[in-house]
């Protein structure tokens, strides 16, 4: 038992405690291990949280593939792709922040954290643009939902003839759904789209909130090579939120959008 051994090593030593050591832990190592295990368990719950949505998505994607492919084509590859790049880059800056905290570089930690927050905000800004577009096109599920098949996506190379007309162009399968059916089932796609991306965005907002606190702590010099757990935990969370997007992007934007 490694922790039992850690206990045994530490007992009897009367050396000065790190200010961040809480009373019920014996060592900083034990405290950090607890936080790491706790964070991973938390991320596990997050996986199952999003998992329910992914399960629903899979069911309906299989049932209503054509509607999903059709609805997916109305999303903008440019904005989606840009956001994917932004988020991946923000994961890098986050990792740099953790590394800087670990190596006692206070101002670098603060700067990397601020950069990460900026990238997160850019992502959210793009999301606002995309959502506004959905509102404009009546693609928000509910009473005003309207799947107008004459309104194709603005960008992207597949923005040409919508297959709802029955033309099996560009390697799409022939659509088996009538416009009336599309009107109903694309709504399921957009219900999932808004729930999934909305929850993801909420997680990003929470992440930025956490980072504000962490940045303040870093600015005040609370972290050193012995204690940088909060930065690392925020990092784990941020990477998790990124990974969710890495799955959301192809599932939502790239349904049957192969070259």
């Amino acid at each position, binding site marked *: *038992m490694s*922790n*039992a051994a850690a*206990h*045994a090593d530490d*007992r009897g030593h009367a050396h000065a405690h790190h200010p961040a050591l*809480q*009373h*019920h832990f*014996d060592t900083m190592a*034990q405290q950090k*291990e*607890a936080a790491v*295990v*706790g964070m991973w*368990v*938390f991320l*596990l*719950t*997050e996986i*199952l*949280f*999003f*998992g*329910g*949505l992914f*399960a*629903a998505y899979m*069911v*309906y994607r299989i*049932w*209503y593939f054509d509607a999903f492919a059709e609805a997916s084509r109305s999303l903008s590859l440019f904005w989606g792709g840009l956001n994917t790049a932004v988020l991946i880059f923000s994961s890098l800056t986050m990792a740099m922040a953790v590394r800087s905290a670990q190596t006692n570089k206070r101002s670098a930690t603060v700067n990397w954290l601020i950069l990460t927050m900026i990238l997160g905000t850019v992502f959210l800004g793009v999301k606002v643009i995309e959502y506004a577009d959905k509102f404009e096109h009546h693609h928000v*599920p*509910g*009473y005003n939902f309207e799947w107008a098949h004459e309104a194709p996506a603005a960008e992207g190379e597949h923005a040409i003839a919508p297959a709802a007309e029955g033309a099996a162009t560009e390697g799409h399968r022939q659509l088996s759904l009538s416009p009336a*059916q599309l009107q*109903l*089932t694309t*709504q*399921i796609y*957009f*219900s*999932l789209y*808004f*729930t999934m991306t909305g*929850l993801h965005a909420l997680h990003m907002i929470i992440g930025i909130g956490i980072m504000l606190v962490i940045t303040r702590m870093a600015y005040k010099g609370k972290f050193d090579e012995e204690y940088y757990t909060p930065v690392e935990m925020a990092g784990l969370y941020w990477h998790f939120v990124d990974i969710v997007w890495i799955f959301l992007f192809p599932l939502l934007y790239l349904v049957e959008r192969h070259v």
Partner: protein
Amino acid sequence: MLDKLKIPERNYLNNGHGLASWLLTKDHKRIAIMYLISITVMFFLGGLFAVGIRLELATPAGDFVQADTYNKFFTAHGVIMVFFFLIPSIPAVLGNFLIPPMIGAKDLAFPRINLLSLYIYWIGGIFTLYAMLAGGVDTGWTFYTPYSATGSNSNVVPVALGVFIAGFSSILTGLNFIVTIHRMRAPGMTWFRLPLFVWAHYATSLVQVLGTPVIAITIVMLGVERGLGFGIFDPARGGDPVLFQHLFWFYSHPAVYIMILPALGVMSELISTFTKKTIFGYSFVAFSSLAIAVFGFIVWAHHMFTSGISTYAAMVFSFLSFSVAIPSAVKVFNWTATLYKGAISFETPMLYAYGFMGLFLIGGLTGLFLATLGLDIHLHDTYFVVAHFHYIMVGGAIMGYMGGLHFWWPKLTGRMYSEFFSRISAILVFVGFNLTFFPQFVVGYLGMPRRYHSYPDEFQVLNVLSSAGASVLGLGYFLPVIYLLWSLKKGAIAGPNPWGASGLEWQMQSPPLTENFVEVPIVTHDAYEYEHVVAKEKHLV
């Protein structure tokens, strides 16, 4: 020596006075006490709705309340009892109080998160109670779509939101336990020296952490459907209400194990202590908890045999549901083997343990009836199902909780309750319970459906028996409130180890110090070894 026992001058109860010292505490023991008070209030509130149900069903005609009101009664009873009493009951009270001392730790790994979980529970409770006051909700505790999404005119969203919020309290408790058990064990406290109570809570925590987020997201999907007009489960737009049932039961079936597993853990402690024997087949009992947690996740669709799922899926789920019986039986057989030739005694906690074994057995075996595909067609949504799950949840989980509460009460408070009255109450609970729920097996088999406020005349005798039993059961639950409160002031001083139990928690003073132990204990022996307990007592006398 014994008559000189005193309540220790310094303990967690008098370490700080006033409301703030409780509301802002990070002490797992104080948080456990606050949970105890909260869930007791919820228990009696949920019980009040059960009184309404039983009053209505005393006569065949729907004469006590309107059908609508009756729907709200059983929904409120279900929601409060499941999400606000049973789920937190043993883990948040007994587990919270006992896991750190049982493994020789000063506190849970995350004391602040522990307090946060209590606040989250309260906030969830406020939402749910608000909805009850604002007119109630009539969907049943299962919130089945499409009725809950588009049909019902009652307060679905606030109740669902309350359940959603309370779920995070459950997740945080489970997370805290997992980390604590992994990282906070005292030197020498290896995994296979852990008390079985801790093993059971570890398994429970896994279910809480893996299952609860799924009900959370399901409620989110229901919420956006009802609140924002999204269509995920709406059959009018091609959505699938059965998908809601799948997602709902993916949590809500394992949730049954969140309720029963901790009670199984309590049972192991009780049976070992009151027979003064090492538990028979320790590792089997430990692993059977994990097995129940794992199996619990792959049997959910047995709630849906009549919902139109594929026959092949139903066959697989039927088979898997049967296999849950194996680890459950492992436990019961091992307890029985522990009783064999043990120094059995009949203190109140042990009375509950005996009651538990009988009722859990009946509840478990009738579960096999329901897992049988053909029979389930007949029994689905009848009182047979109601009786079955009450045997597990009331006869199992609450009996375990009551047994545990009586067993550790001297540790919680430092004082003994009235042995006489507590035995009376244990017997009342057992008799009242069987009188309430056994007739329901019969009336259900005869075809009385659940969730109706009136029924044909020929079912009246059995329903009157049930209502009469419920009043005995209610008395059995109310008595402890009186004698336990009485014991706080007048009870005999318990001393550190009134039962001669072997766990580490009994080496603390009663009530314990805020930091639990004077110095970190070093564990040198397995769980349930009584030689050193006896030796210590002889040494004292």
